[in-house]
């Protein structure tokens, strides 16, 4: 084998490996379509995305962007944050399907819903 051929062969095999790897990643992405997490920002005394639909197993993170503290409290007691001051976050992983209404216990006119699908 000439040196030039060796280099060419190496390049080709690398390319093939690369393409294979890419397709594997794509398959993996198809196999696990749920995003690793979902975010709800709090601002102007509202949950900016009042209704969020996620797959079971998703972790939802709320971040308070207001100058005033808020809380994230589920209506049925499934989850309850501590008080979130400016910039504080609260996360909860929704393991099971269902509809989870929640509100801010300081400002109860602030409400939201997480819909969890199987």
């Amino acid at each position: 084998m000439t040196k030039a051929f060796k280099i060419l062969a190496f390049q080709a095999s690398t390319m093939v490996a690369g393409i294979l790897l890419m397709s594997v990643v794509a398959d993996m992405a198809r196999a696990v379509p749920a995003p690793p997490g979902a975010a709800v920002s709090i601002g102007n005394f509202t949950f900016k995305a009042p209704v969020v639909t996620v797959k079971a197993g998703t972790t939802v993170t709320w971040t308070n962007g207001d100058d005033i503290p808020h809380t994230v409290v589920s209506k049925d007691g499934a989850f309850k944050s501590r008080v979130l001051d400016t910039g504080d976050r609260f996360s909860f992983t929704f393991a099971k399907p269902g509809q989870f209404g929640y509100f801010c216990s300081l400002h109860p006119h602030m409400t939201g819903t997480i819909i969890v699908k199987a």
Partner: protein
Amino acid sequence: MHHNVEEDRRDFLKCMAWAGTGALFAVAGGVPSSIGLDAAIAAPYRPHAKAASFTFLQLSDSHIGFNKAPNADARATFREAVAKVKTLRVQPDFIIHTGDVSQLSRDDEFDDADQILKETGLPVFFVPGEHDMLDPDGGKAFRDRFGRGTLGAGWYSFDHKGVHFVALVNVADLKPGGMGNLGAEQLQWLAADLAGRPASTPIVVFAHIPLWTVYAEWGWGTDDAAAALKLLARFGSVTVLNGHIHQITRKVEGHIAFHTARSTAFPQPAPGTAPSPGPLKVPPEQLHSMLGITDAFFVRGSDRIALIDSTLAV
């Protein structure tokens, strides 16, 4: 000797009006009238002979711990408010604090508020705001410090020189989608507390969130207030003092006069004038003119309580 109460009262209000800025709110004949005037500070001290006449003072929304625009130090402005109380020529018999003593219900916040208030040497009667309910036990830290001997979430009543004072809590156990809430247990207690009192007893009710709907979109009201107001309707003189909305609003309905006080920490926007009820970020030179205290004057026989709001700007 016959003593003309009305003349005395007019005289009294005139003497209050003598000097300046601020706003006097006198409930007369069901219609509140506002006169431009200064705080009681500048007025000459004229003791009123009637033993039963007295003043008390309302402080609200001190938010100790708040440190963002437009007020980097809510402790400092609370100290200024307390210093202002100390300079009043007619010292109030006591102070009521209508809630949001703290920003986050932290021990150091409650402690600082307590220490600052002690400088007045006056008794202080509290009700919690929603910011005072943020400890893990939902208000126990507040009650342990400021609400010893109170009932339920912190309600109670007391009498002072013939006036019946009722402290209500409308920030506990709030319902999703709702506003302030008194709850069945407290309403039941209120009915029993008022039962048997003559309709001529002047009543002062104080609670954090307004007991009438100022602005539902921002939750500025109390869902079951109507039940409480129904119990109060038979009394000839009822004054309802609230905080929460960090600005003065007034309303008179029958014999009931409603009033909200300024905060000592930061102003909030007028209903619907901003995207949210968050702090109004006024320039530093404007801040003190939007913070303040409320002085309440009770003159025996007039069955009316005059409320004087003054700012920290002077």
